[in-house]
């Protein structure tokens, strides 16, 4: 399929079920909320080594937060609820509790409850107090700028999906980057999703396995331009000089599909003159992940892209 001069591969993204939660971080102003959110979602690109995948979902106006201050909503995903709980506790403890003026609240209210401020309260060394307000328990922990307020629990959805993706094949790095930036910017407007890699983009797409027995994943040689003439099977034609991948995690299957659809639409609208030649997707043959997002079905104007 070719649209606006860009080839859309007859391929699909293969994604996996994950556990996810949303946290709302507020602060004295947006800048400090962002400092905490950036730190909390740092080193959270892939569950392979980070324990979770996380990112900033969006900014929140004072009208949208429980305490009437500006805030940031972040999403955190893990493969298991237990690991997610561990990551939430560590990250909030090290990156929100520590950040001046911040408070943290649950951003999801259905599913299984996990600790948010429940264990962090012990930092208060006995001076902490709690209060049930509107049916929710909050902890007040004395800190050097006043007190750190944290909701006791947040809730986890088991419907989350991780690993939706698009492969952007372009003439050169500048064109690939520009395409990726445009697609990420468009997808960031959507709720319930994050793109956990730096800037939303990953340049080290991987395949399963390696020649080294201890490695579970290794470079996706079929998409490396430098191996076009060397790899046993390269996916790249002579016109492709650079490939970028955008990975999407969402709270539901529908959210991931909507994000991929928006990404595709944005990329196709920019046309082949932008240097983007092909759009593909990463999968493992469809045998590993239950969520398959077929590009041809996601292309704007066409119906559901999932099977």
């Amino acid at each position, binding site marked *: 399929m070719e649209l606006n001069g860009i080839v859309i591969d007859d391929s699909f993204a293969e994604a996996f079920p994950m556990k996810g939660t949303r946290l709302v971080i507020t602060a004295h102003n947006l800048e400090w909320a962002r400092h905490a959110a950036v730190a909390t979602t740092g080193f959270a690109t892939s569950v392979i080594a980070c324990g979770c995948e996380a990112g900033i979902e969006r900014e929140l106006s004072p009208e949208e937060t*429980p*305490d009437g*201050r500006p805030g940031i909503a972040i999403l955190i995903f893990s493969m298991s609820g237990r690991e997610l709980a561990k990551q939430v506790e560590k990250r909030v403890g090290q990156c929100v509790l520590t950040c001046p003026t911040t*408070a943290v609240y649950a951003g999801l209210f259905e599913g299984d409850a996990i600790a948010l401020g429940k264990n962090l309260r012990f930092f208060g060394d006995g001076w902490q*107090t709690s209060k*049930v*307000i*509107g049916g929710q328990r*909050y902890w007040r922990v004395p800190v050097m700028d*006043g007190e750190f307020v944290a909701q006791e629990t947040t809730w986890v959805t088991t419907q989350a999906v991780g690993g939706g993706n698009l492969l952007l094949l372009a003439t050169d790095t500048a064109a690939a980057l520009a395409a990726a930036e445009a697609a990420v910017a468009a997808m960031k407007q959507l709720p319930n999703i994050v793109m956990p890699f730096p800037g939303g983009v990953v340049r080290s797409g991987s395949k399963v396995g390696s020649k080294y027995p201890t490695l579970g994943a290794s470079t996706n040689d079929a998409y490396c331009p430098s191996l076009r003439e060397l790899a046993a099977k390269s996916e790249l034609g002579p016109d492709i000089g650079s490939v970028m991948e955008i990975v999407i995690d969402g709270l539901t299957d529908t959210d991931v599909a909507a994000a991929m659809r928006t990404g595709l639409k944005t990329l196709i609208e920019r046309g082949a003159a932008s240097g983007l030649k092909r759009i593909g997707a990463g999968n493992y043959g469809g045998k590993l992940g239950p969520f398959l997002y077929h590009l041809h079905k996601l292309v704007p104007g066409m119906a559901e892209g999932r099977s």
Partner: protein
Amino acid sequence: MSGWTLTLKQAPALRLDLRALSPAALAGLSADAVAKFGVWHGNESVALGELFTITARTDDALHFEGDLSRADRIGWQLAAGRIHVDGPVGDYLGAGMSGGEIVASRDAGLLAACEMSGGRLEIGGNVGDHAASALPGSMDGMRGGTLLVRGSAGARFGDRMRRGSALVFGDAGDFLASRMVAGTIAVAGRIGAHAGYGMRRGSVVCAGTAPAIPPTFVTNDANIAVFWQLLARDLARHGGAFASLPARRVQRHLGDLAAGGKGELLLCV
């Protein structure tokens, strides 16, 4: 539906103990069975039909009408359903209730909402001493739910209270929140002497005239704006003098230092 309206025929000579009456207890009974339902009048069991005119309702609520100021323990340990009282009530209104809703249009006697753990209790008039407190010998007073007093409260309001929210739209008597363990009390009017006597934790919001701060409390000006917004917005839902709380600042006094000092009197300025 299975609701009933019970209209008192005349004031009983002795105290009535209505603890056995709840929407659930009377649901599914015939009018005959309700009329034969026994309640204690002093030390004798009397049929409801002798005391009340009984009429079926189209909803499933339990309504009382008349001067019930000698009727005690209305809504005792209520778990679900709605009780409405059109008239003054006696002691122990809603004591030990864990759910449902009780609305009393006029005054209530002593120990209303004591050891209440959930649900909503609204008193249209004044309430006597020891509301939202503990039964004799008990360690914890009110431990959940919402108590609204549209009028004024007597002494020892919220004694040993542990959890929940209790709002007084009028004045509160002496020893407000004495020995309070935790929870929230908000008063829109004046507050009597010795507020927070022996309180360990918990918050007392003084939205009206500032009370005399006991000598065992210390002033603290640390920034608690986040917590205050959470609390003030929740209290503001109840309207009246509390509606403006989110826009007001608070002065905080910590105490009772004789009991650890983690409680707070929050004076709205």
